[in-house]
């Protein structure tokens, strides 16, 4: 089993059965419970925060603030949503505020094309002829496994780069949906967007990441 695969298994255990118990002891002041939650979720929080703020230092501060807000609010958390949704929501609210503040000082790259109703096409129009048919038929990726692709540092960097260069809102949606594995309803709840908008943004983001992978496959894995 590869390193990545292990990570993945750990991450899939997120919604873990033990979580309500963990929260129960956390309320009573159990440090180990807090440490476990911090370990379990901080990497995800950091990744989501980076979709809002322009640098790592700011993202780390937002994550820290989020955990402090969790401690402040944990006695009132009623479990109406999952802990994960609640936690991500706190983070997003803080990251948004922080991002807006930073943007006054930093030229933030990707403001254009952010909303779902912008003119941006849903696919790359250059792939289709006037009748909407493929100009070049998409090929089979059956040889590609995630493990194989991620084993190469270049591929990993290229995918990270593709995600980082998405317009901010697209990056937020794809990070929550596909990378963190939230459901569509959870994402709408966390980001406060409609399901339709969410799907449009997600689709555009996925289309671009697919294209980045395709170009990477073209250049290396075919002969590797």
């Amino acid at each position: 089993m590869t390193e990545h695969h292990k990570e993945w298994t750990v991450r899939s255990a997120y919604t873990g059965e033990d979580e309500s118990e963990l929260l129960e002891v956390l309320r009573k002041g159990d440090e180990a419970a807090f440490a476990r939650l911090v370990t379990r979720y901080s990497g995800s929080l950091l990744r989501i925060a980076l979709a809002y703020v322009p640098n790592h230092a700011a993202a780390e501060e937002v994550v820290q603030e989020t955990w402090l807000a969790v401690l402040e609010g944990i006695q009132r958390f009623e479990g109406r949503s999952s802990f994960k949704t609640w936690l991500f929501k706190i983070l997003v609210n803080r990251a948004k505020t922080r991002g807006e503040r930073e943007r006054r000082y930093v030229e933030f790259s990707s403001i254009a094309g952010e909303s779902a109703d912008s003119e941006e096409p849903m696919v790359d129009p250059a792939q289709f002829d006037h009748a909407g048919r493929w100009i070049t038929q998409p090929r089979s990726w059956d040889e590609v496994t995630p493990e194989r692709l991620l084993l190469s540092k270049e591929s990993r960097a290229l995918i990270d780069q593709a995600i980082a260069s998405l317009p901010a809102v697209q990056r937020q949606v794809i990070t929550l949906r596909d990378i963190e594995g939230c459901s569509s309803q959870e994402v709408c709840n966390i980001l406060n967007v409609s399901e339709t908008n969410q799907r449009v943004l997600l689709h555009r983001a996925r289309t671009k990441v697919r294209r980045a992978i395709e170009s990477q496959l073209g250049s290396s894995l075919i002969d590797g």
Partner: protein
Amino acid sequence: MDKDFRQTVMAYLAGKLTCRQVAEAITDYLDGSLSFWQRVRFELHLGMCIGCRNYLRQMKKTIQLLGTLPPDPIPDHIRDELLRRFRTWSHHQKHTGERSEQEWR
């Protein structure tokens, strides 16, 4: 049903969607948000178009791949700082209850 007739109907229905429209609708399809007839047309098109079938698989693989990206671990100094704050917090919890929520920060 007559086999030729069925093929004609299928070709007609599938012909109503272009490859571009199929490519545009993939997230809707995967999320189950297409209407019944949209889904039928989508699947008929897939049945007859290898390019779109491959494209759909590429998109699924992209999503699968995104789901395996491991997060960077949180830096140790942040973790330590959080645990330190936690001790102050739980100390306050035990001694003052919820009344002085803000003070521990």
